[in-house]
């Protein structure tokens, strides 16, 4: 009984504590990194005042946010208004439980896995739970009872459900190679094949990466927020900590999407070329570090894309998905099927 409790409650609680602690800090620094990288892309310096090179900026920001006035518009639907940031954060966070961060270690006689919950429907559950974010966003926009948030929420919902289709088709192509839904199983399948799936499914990866940027409402697909036309999009009416929760949810969603991308296409925690013996010395680097390196690269990619591309128009955004990505992803599935059959 004690063993059961330790394995199923205590270890996950410790993992969750460590993960949330790191995440709370990391989100602040991702925001700082974004401001810095964008600044350098635009030949500016970015935040410089708080701490050396602005390194303490996240702490100042969070202090500021927690001290900000908490406004609820008079005409808002109070219950939904309060609930929606919680839905966004809870949906984004819970998916983290299914991401395998590494191989796992043994401490005090107990094996601590690199993933909080390795369930056999892993990736399906991730897509399902992260789909709930749409509810949080549309509830937030609707309950504010204001025009900008409502427009932003409608755009966000339509965009997220549309790109979810292309995203799922791209994931399916990867799953055909892996033959399992478990996130750990997907990485192990790449170890068995001796090749990261990016090399066998480059088209699916391209579609996934575009859809991933659109799913998280990031530039150049940030029509839901579009500062220059919708003020703040679906969270225009939110202030202080509640606004910060939307922000936290968005950055966590970015992290989760990058993690899925890495797990499905870039070998998760595996080192480069896992089947080449000559590179075995790379195993000296812990698996978790490889995973973090890859995820960080994708986070940088998000920022890079934001700094480089102008925002899409809404009809172009929809046309890109419905007229290009979806037919391409279906075609990719069929080609994968035929090639797998010929090679079998």
């Amino acid at each position, binding site marked *: 009984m004690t063993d059961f409790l330790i394995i199923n409650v205590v270890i996950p609680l410790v*993992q969750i504590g460590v993960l949330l602690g790191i995440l709370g800090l990391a989100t602040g620094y991702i925001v700082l990194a974004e401001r810095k990288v964008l600044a350098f892309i635009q030949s500016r310096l970015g935040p410089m005042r708080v701490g050396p090179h602005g390194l303490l900026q996240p702490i100042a920001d969070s202090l500021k946010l927690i*001290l900000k006035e908490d406004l609820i518009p008079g005409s808002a639907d109070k219950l939904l208004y309060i609930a929606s940031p919680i839905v966004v954060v809870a949906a984004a966070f819970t998916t983290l439980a299914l991401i395998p961060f590494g191989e796992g270690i043994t401490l005090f006689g107990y094996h601590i896995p690199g993933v909080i*919950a390795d369930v056999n429907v892993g990736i399906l559950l991730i897509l399902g739970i992260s789909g709930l974010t749409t509810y949080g966003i549309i509830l937030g926009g609707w309950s504010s009872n204001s025009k900008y948030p409502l427009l932003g929420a409608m755009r966000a919902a339509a965009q997220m459900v549309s790109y979810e289709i292309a995203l799922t088709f791209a994931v399916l192509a990867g799953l055909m190679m892996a033959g399992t839904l478990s996130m750990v199983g997907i990485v192990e399948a790449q170890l068995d094949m001796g090749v990261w799936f990016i090399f066998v499914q480059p088209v699916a990866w391209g579609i996934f990466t575009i859809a991933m940027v659109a799913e998280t409402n990031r530039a150049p697909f940030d029509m839901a927020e579009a500062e220059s036309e919708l003020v703040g999009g679906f969270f225009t009416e939110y202030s202080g900590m509640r606004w910060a929760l939307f922000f936290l949810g968005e950055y966590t969603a970015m992290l989760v999407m990058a993690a899925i991308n890495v797990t499905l296409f870039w070998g998760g925690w595996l080192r480069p070329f896992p089947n080449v013996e000559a590179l075995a010395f790379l195993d000296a680097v812990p698996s978790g570090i490889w995973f973090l390196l890859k995820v960080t690269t994708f986070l940088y990619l998000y920022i890079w894309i934001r700094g480089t591309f102008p925002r899409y128009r809404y009809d172009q955004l929809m046309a890109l998905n419905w007229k290009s990505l979806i037919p391409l992803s279906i075609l990719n599935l069929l080609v994968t099927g035929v090639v797998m059959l010929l090679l079998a």
Partner: protein
Amino acid sequence: MVAYLPIAIFLGVAIAFAILPVVLGRFIRPTPPQSEGKLAPYECGIEPTRDAHARFSIRFYIVAMLFLVFDVETVFMFPWAIRYRQLALFGLIEMVIFLAILIFGYVYAWKRGALEWV
């Protein structure tokens, strides 16, 4: 089902994590006086003329319909994708038939202009 227990725990912790800073902030932040203008919906300083819950573009409705069709389709394809190696040729032919029906509807929707956003 034990494997799902950590996810439930995580959900609980995540909700607490979301509620805590908002509640905590209530005790430490100053409370400036409220006014009617402050509580009004934001419309760049112009007084709101009517309720925001008005009618919106029919386009969103069409997108929702199309999404439903495709999303149900993808759910059916998950078991097919992970068992594809075992299903082999039978699986491929069946999926081609399955997708052909979907693509027929998709081409119809495209030709009728359901995918145009103007």
